[in-house]
């Protein structure tokens, strides 16, 4: 018995008959149902649906439990964004898949009068796998670039000018004072020439810089500048540069999932509120932050709101841009919400009971999250091993099947193998009568190869 790799095609068949038009993305056949069938791959739908369900759960919970602080709220919005990564680790995304939807018949002359009907099993590119792997690759690239060069790129994009130690002495004194109060190292100070009032943080560690626009320094009094500094220093203290980087990287990993944008937007807004609250606490007069925000907001009205692609690029490299932005999923809460939260700081007292309530909610969420693993593992016992800790990737079941020529084509029942589901193993098969004894391929389960079995090649063809 010969075993011939169908790729390239065996010579004894007409190439046109044997090789259907190769389609890297076999979407055209099934129409919208084909697309849905293709999306129904566990690594994809669990990544999308898992993230969506958890984000909506967090959103619903947080609407109800209003007493949770912004720090916890932002972390809760961050957590579901890790779901796709966990799912991908458990169920590896596959860049290729098998396609079964082509039934072909071979010309009788090629098979010496016998008509063989068979299914061509093709290994084709898996569009869903490509999308997912693209997200992972982009996330990895963004993370690497941001860690290594993010600070420098951001400063260059925004034309940041580092100030000498004797420049803007009043601002320098304010920054030093507020940083000391917050218990953080004094950041470097830089400016941009923009006449719009703006302030933001760039870089981390020793490279952390507090950047002001000339417009901001011109319109604000020293006290108001102190309020802005308090807000920005709070961002530094909360390590928001890492928090935001994590959010932005995870958003890119799930770039095809609208819920990821929603979660990131919510988390960023909570971080802003947190910086407002902590900034207000750092100031002797918390209401000053509110009046300063109003002043900046009013001044910003003179400028058209930003929506350019370059502006979006800038926002990748900086933390807390204090500027107006047109976004579907805004990174900053509305002025009203911010002012209300700042006013709350004045009246809020630390409540012991609230801490207990917060802890209870977190425990509840953790229990719900962990419990979700078990039905998932039960449903996909073939993909996910049923161990909670020390989770290993599930083993694929090796399989073999044969198709008998001249009979109705059907896929072997015991093997759960449907179009769109990435499989690993050696698949096969087109044969002449009688049914062939197929070799045991289970030992080669990790090798993806399509084999063609021809027991009786036609001589001379």
């Amino acid at each position, binding site marked *: 018995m010969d075993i011939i790799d169908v790729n390239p095609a065996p010579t004894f068949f007409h190439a046109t008959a044997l090789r259907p038009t190769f389609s890297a993305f076999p979407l055209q056949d099934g129409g919208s149902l084909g697309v849905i069938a293709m999306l129904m791959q566990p690594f994809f739908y669990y990544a999308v649906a898992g993230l969506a369900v958890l984000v909506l759960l967090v959103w619903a919970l947080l609407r109800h439990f209003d007493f949770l602080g912004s720090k916890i709220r932002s972390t809760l919005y961050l957590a579901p964004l890790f779901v796709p990564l966990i799912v991908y680790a458990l169920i590896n995304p596959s860049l290729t898949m098998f396609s079964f939807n082509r039934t072909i018949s071979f010309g009788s002359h090629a098979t010496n009068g016998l008509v063989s009907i068979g299914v061509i099993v093709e290994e084709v590119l898996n569009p869903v796998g490509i999308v997912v792997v693209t997200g992972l690759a982009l996330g990895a690239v963004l993370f690497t670039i941001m860690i290594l060069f993010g600070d420098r790129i951001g400063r260059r994009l925004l034309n940041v000018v580092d100030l000498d130690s004797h420049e*803007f002495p009043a601002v320098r004194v304010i920054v030093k004072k507020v940083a000391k109060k917050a218990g953080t190292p004094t950041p470097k100070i830089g400016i941009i*020439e923009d*006449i719009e009032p703006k302030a933001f943080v760039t870089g981390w560690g020793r490279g952390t810089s507090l950047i002001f626009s000339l417009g901001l320094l011109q319109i604000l009094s020293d006290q108001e500048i102190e309020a802005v500094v308090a807000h920005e220093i709070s961002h530094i203290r909360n390590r928001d540069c890492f928090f935001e980087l994590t959010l932005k990287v995870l958003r890119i990993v799930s770039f095809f999932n609208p819920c990821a944008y929603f979660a990131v937007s919510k988390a960023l807004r909570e971080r802003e509120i947190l910086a407002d609250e902590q900034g207000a606490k750092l100031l002797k007069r918390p209401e000053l932050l509110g009046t300063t925000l109003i002043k900046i907001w009013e001044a910003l009205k003179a400028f058209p709101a930003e929506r350019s692609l370059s502006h979006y690029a800038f926002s990748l490299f900086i933390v807390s841009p204090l500027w107006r932005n047109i976004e579907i999923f805004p990174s900053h809460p509305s002025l009203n919400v911010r002012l209300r939260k700042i006013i709350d700081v004045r009246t809020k007292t630390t409540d012991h009971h609230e801490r207990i309530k917060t802890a209870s909610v977190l425990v509840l969420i953790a229990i719900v999250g962990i419990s979700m693993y078990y039905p998932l593992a039960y449903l996909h016992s073939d993909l996910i091993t049923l161990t909670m800790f020390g989770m290993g990737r599930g083993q694929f079941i090796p399989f073999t099947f044969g198709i008998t020529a001249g009979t109705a084509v059907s896929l072997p029942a015991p093997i759960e193998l449907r179009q769109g589901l990435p499989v690993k193993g050696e698949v096969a098969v087109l044969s002449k009568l009688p049914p062939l004894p197929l070799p045991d391929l289970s030992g080669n389960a990790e090798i993806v190869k399509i084999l063609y079995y021809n027991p009786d090649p036609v001589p001379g063809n």
Partner: protein
Amino acid sequence: MSSKEYKVSQYKLNSEGLVVFLGPLEVEVMNEIWSLKKAPLSVREVYESLRGKKEIAYTTVMSTMNLLYEKKLLKRKLEKGKGGHYYVYWTALSEEELKKSAVEQVIDSLIKNFGETVVNYILKEKNLDEKELKTMKELLEERLKSKE
């Protein structure tokens, strides 16, 4: 005053070059902008160029350029680009135009206030050679003719 004129506000006898009319930093910034041969320029660009040559603070360059704008030696407009809305500057006069305008104003002022003294000084105190005297004579005759 036309746009190609600079109104001289000071004249420092003990200085050299354009510093007789302007502050030393102002001259440095003007020279830098002329030499960069790019227009318009932001303060940051001028600062970075100067910074390559000497220790200078951004705010110094910024305030100097503001002053030069107020003196109408620089023009500026608001531009939208990388980093938002910012001012960009360009020179209102070339170096030659600035020198010509300033020198003319100084001599005009001297002649207007001390015309006779200036003429006496040129004719008596200054050792003009024959050629210069001849040129002067021709210019005077030409001028007198046009007045008739």
